[in-house]
């Protein structure tokens, strides 16, 4: 019987198309906002999480805080980390290795085309092996750098693709190609294996000393000091020891640190909590929009009850019980919510994936990604249906209580 009631409700809705769509606008704007923004937020989280390959997992990252200008980590700090700190930190007990890492913008010229890219440092000597192991650095083409190399670099996988980067430089890079970094000639000896993170895929990895020598990075502006601990279980203790040492070294009191010592985990957590806050905010706005949409449904349903009083009377005279009339109107308002939800999901998905695609073409970045889970889609649909029915309860109840004699007497 429910199926028949659905059919009757659908017919009533399609009879009044304009009003039906106008009513649903409130719902589908809300649902579209939820899907698009939560979807993009999720995508951003996934993208950012993958960037943390920069440090590895059983490592602490030391960074200068108090950023004065936008740019790569540490580059704009008022009191940057100096190059001598790494050696000193290495002497702290529980630290296996500590070395500087530089990340700077660099002008890359290839095939007569120029673009600003990121250069990332690789230390020399034993630290090279430590880093390679730490971030699992491998090449898909050519080889890694050695201490004997001069003016040699590795480039990320995206440079070797015929995608946006290939287009930018006219053709994809391969091992053996020569590129110009800040006016200096370098040879590409290897392509880094694709990792899905811009730190690897969209960057130039080069020798630390050469990076300083050719003025790509300032030696006394270390981006991050990577600290490898000898025992992962002691990581908290080592973190405290480094903080204590740096406070003394930089002459700051506890609580006024102008630096941070973080595990990638904690950095990730703080980032995640920020993203959650943004998503929560968006969700609240969407919920308000949905509530307004719900009230719109209620309004439409009240109008429908008034308008169809006669029809209700007819149905009652034909044997429809109060519960039948209630169910009919209840389903109708639920459908208003759910169809609104379906349109909203479609709009939201198109917006999210459209923005991601636009981000990729226009910015050449994978950072804008859409990630819409099935649970989000079905959750939104269920929510919009429930919303429709919830706001339909009162009008449906009113309809069901109408007196058949009075309803039948209505002219229209």
């Amino acid at each position, binding site marked *: 019987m429910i199926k028949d009631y659905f059919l009757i409700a659908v017919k009533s809705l399609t009879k009044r198309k304009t009003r039906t769509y106008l009513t649903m606008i409130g719902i589908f704007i809300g649902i579209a906002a939820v899907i698009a923004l939560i979807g993009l937020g999720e995508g951003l989280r996934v993208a950012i999480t993958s960037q943390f390959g920069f440090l590895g997992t059983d490592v602490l990252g030391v960074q200068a805080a108090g950023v004065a200008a936008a740019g790569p980590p540490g580059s704009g700090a008022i009191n940057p980390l100096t190059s001598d700190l790494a050696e000193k930190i290495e002497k702290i007990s529980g630290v296996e290795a500590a070395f500087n890492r530089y990340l700077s913008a660099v002008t890359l010229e290839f095939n007569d085309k120029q673009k600003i890219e990121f250069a990332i440092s690789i230390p020399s000597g034993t630290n090279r092996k430590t880093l390679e192991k730490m971030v699992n650095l491998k090449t898909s083409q050519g080889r890694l750098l050695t201490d004997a190399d001069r003016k040699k670099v590795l480039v990320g996988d995206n440079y070797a693709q015929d995608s946006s980067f290939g287009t930018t430089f006219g053709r994809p890079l391969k091992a053996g190609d020569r590129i110009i970094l800040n006016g200096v000639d370098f040879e590409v000896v290897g392509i880094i294996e694709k990792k899905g993170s811009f730190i690897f895929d969209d960057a130039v990895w080069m020798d630390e000393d050469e990076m300083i020598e050719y003025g790509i990075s300032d030696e006394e502006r270390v981006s991050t000091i990577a600290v490898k601990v000898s025992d992962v279980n002691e990581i908290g203790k080592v973190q405290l020891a480094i903080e204590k040492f740096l406070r003394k070294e930089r002459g700051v009191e506890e609580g006024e640190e102008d630096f941070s010592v973080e595990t990638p985990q904690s950095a990730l957590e703080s980032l995640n909590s920020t993203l959650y806050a943004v998503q929560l905010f968006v969700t609240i706005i969407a919920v308000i929009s949905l509530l307004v949409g719900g009230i719109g449904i209620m309004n439409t349903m009240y109008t429908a009850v008034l308008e169809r009083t006669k029809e209700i009377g007819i149905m009652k005279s034909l044997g429809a*019980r109060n519960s039948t009339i209630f169910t009919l109107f209840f389903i109708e308002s639920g459908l208003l919510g759910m169809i609104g939800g379906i349109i909203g999901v479609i709009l939201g998905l198109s917006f999210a994936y459209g923005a991601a695609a636009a981000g990729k073409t226009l910015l050449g970045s994978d950072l804008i990604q859409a990630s819409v889970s099935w649970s989000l889609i079905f959750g939104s649909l269920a929510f919009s249906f429930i919303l429709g029915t919830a706001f339909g309860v009162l009008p449906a109840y009113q309809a069901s209580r109408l007196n058949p004699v009075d309803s039948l007497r209505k002219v229209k």
Partner: protein
Amino acid sequence: MARATTKTEKKSDAVLDLKGVWKIYTMGDVEVPALSGLDLVVKRGEFLSIMGPSGSGKSTAMNMIGCLDVPTRGKIYLEGHDISSMSESDLAQIRGRKIGFIFQQFNLINTLTALENVTLPMIFQNMPRQERITKAKKLLELVDLGDRMHHKPTELSGGQQQRVAIARALCNDPEVILADEPTGNLDSKTGGTVMDFLRKLHEKEGKTIIMVTHDEHVAKNADRIEFLRDGKIIKTIKK
């Protein structure tokens, strides 16, 4: 009128029995009686007309007979069951199964096709889909609308709409067909066709028909005419 003449005065033969029925409406502080002790017995297979000027209580009587409303005082028995104090939902069930309505305004649902309109009362009685459709088609053919099944009411003439309403009134095999001014919105020719169908139902199918009208010519189709005034029966004419 062979069937009408065979009727007996046996009590169990009464489909409908109204005993001292009062309906009083309260308008502000004033109580206005619409029915003032109406007594009426309708026998199975009878064709009855109720006539009266406007304000005579015709419509109220019709509402009582059709189980659309309950009396303020008095009793109404439908097939021996007291329906005068039933709840609206129980009354709805009884209406659906026992009463077939035909209204002056046809009262079809405009969003539904002729076929769907006829199936509607069967949906309310939880009849299986296939059975419903088969029956509705048969009834529409009975009223000569086999070729108009998928038309919406707005695509049908007044006479056709009223025939759809007749088919709809028959779909649950009701005990009583209650027609409220069935020809009131029709010209005399189409009105005549509709009356022919009603008479056919009475004569061939033995249906009990109660018709409310103010048109004497139409009322004469019935076996018995009851004249109503001030909420009471004032005159009875039997054929």
